[in-house]
């Protein structure tokens, strides 16, 4: 068994990361998953959160990336994440907190006014992303 797994992070606009990693922790819709080489094939939806990359050994995180949701395909040798929006965690930490909080309030109001099911669904999605960004800043998100 290979000791590394090929990790790829792709956004619609470009290929963001492509490197072999030791382990990667993905925020799945039903809980975090740590993916090691030889993982069983899976397709998972990713919720807004942080992807941790362990490139060298199991103890040190070499890169933390914030994703705003997406999909993850795992095969034994490869992990592919299709993210809608992704940025380095430090970039998210650098965002203006007040703006995010304002967005949060706005979206919550919009959600209260939302009429159709579809509209509510998209707003809930947006809300989750902003909330996750705030949590990431506060450090309460994993």
């Amino acid at each position: 068994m290979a000791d590394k797994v090929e990790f790829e992070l792709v956004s619609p606009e470009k290929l963001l990361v492509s490197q072999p990693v030791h382990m990667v922790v993905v925020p799945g819709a039903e809980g975090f998953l740590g993916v090691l080489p030889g993982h069983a094939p899976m397709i998972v939806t990713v919720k807004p959160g942080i992807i941790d990359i362990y490139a060298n050994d199991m103890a040190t995180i070499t890169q933390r990336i914030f994703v705003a949701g997406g999909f993850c395909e795992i095969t034994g040798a490869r992990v592919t994440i299709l993210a809608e929006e992704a940025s380095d965690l430090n970039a998210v930490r650098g965002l203006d907190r007040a703006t995010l909080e304002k967005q949060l309030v706005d979206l919550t109001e919009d959600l209260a006014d939302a009429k159709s099911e579809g509209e509510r669904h998209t707003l809930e999605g947006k809300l989750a992303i902003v909330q996750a960004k705030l949590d990431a800043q506060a450090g309460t998100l994993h």
Partner: protein
Amino acid sequence: MPSLKDIRNRIASVKSTQKITSAMKMVAASKLRRAQEQAEAGRPYAERMGRMLASLAANVAGGPGGPRLMTGTGSDQTHLLVVMTGDRGLCGGFNSSVVRETRRAIQRLQAEGKTVKLLTVGRKGRDLLRREFPSLIVASFEEVGKKKLSFADADRVTAKILELFNAGQFDVATIVYNKFKSAMTQIVTLQQVVPFAAPEVASDTGSEASAVYEFEPSEEAILADLLPRNLAIQVYSALLESAASFFGAQMTAMDNATRNAGEMIKKYTLVYNRTRQASITKELIEIISGAEAL
């Protein structure tokens, strides 16, 4: 016979036009390169999305309870044509060829007794089609990706398409756009996006493709999330292709215009010189014959 001054003015004006067209050509060339790079960069995502969909579809296929975006509404009575053109002209046959193809498709569908609706992206398409089919246009977008095409632009268009679909406004959606082949050639393509035909699992991936995936949450839930995303990707890549085609067509058109202007200048310069010489000769004859008469 135009006077010398007229010809001089004419040459000056053609020269300045030539300057404009050659500048536009250069701008289009650099934008084309950027658009091509962008299209290139977007490809990995589309590829992997296709792969994921194929393996998902293989698992869900056959079930009648599949999402409607994939299985369709069960009828094909109402067609939605998503027409992608540019916002501006000066690009040769770029806009008109898309419109011509659209017109043909509309006539064909109407002859079959189907209802046709139009969603236009780009101002030129809307303007041209509005004259002929004013009642068919249900929505139109303008200045999509004016500065730089982003995924958010595609998302906006997709949201509208999905809204119409969920409201039962159409059964089949087709994108009409210019596919980029080279700077010289663009091919008008009709691509059906709703219901979405799942790609076949590529055989060359071998054992990997036949692997049994686990799904979290269920296949249906993932598929229901993935299909709208996939639609957005299809729209996005069509928009990218269309943008690259637009700049390619514009570059070619402007190159031709520059060359034509060059020819015109040459022609007028010849006429100018001839006229000038003729008038000098005439003056000389007058002087000489005047001197002889003395």
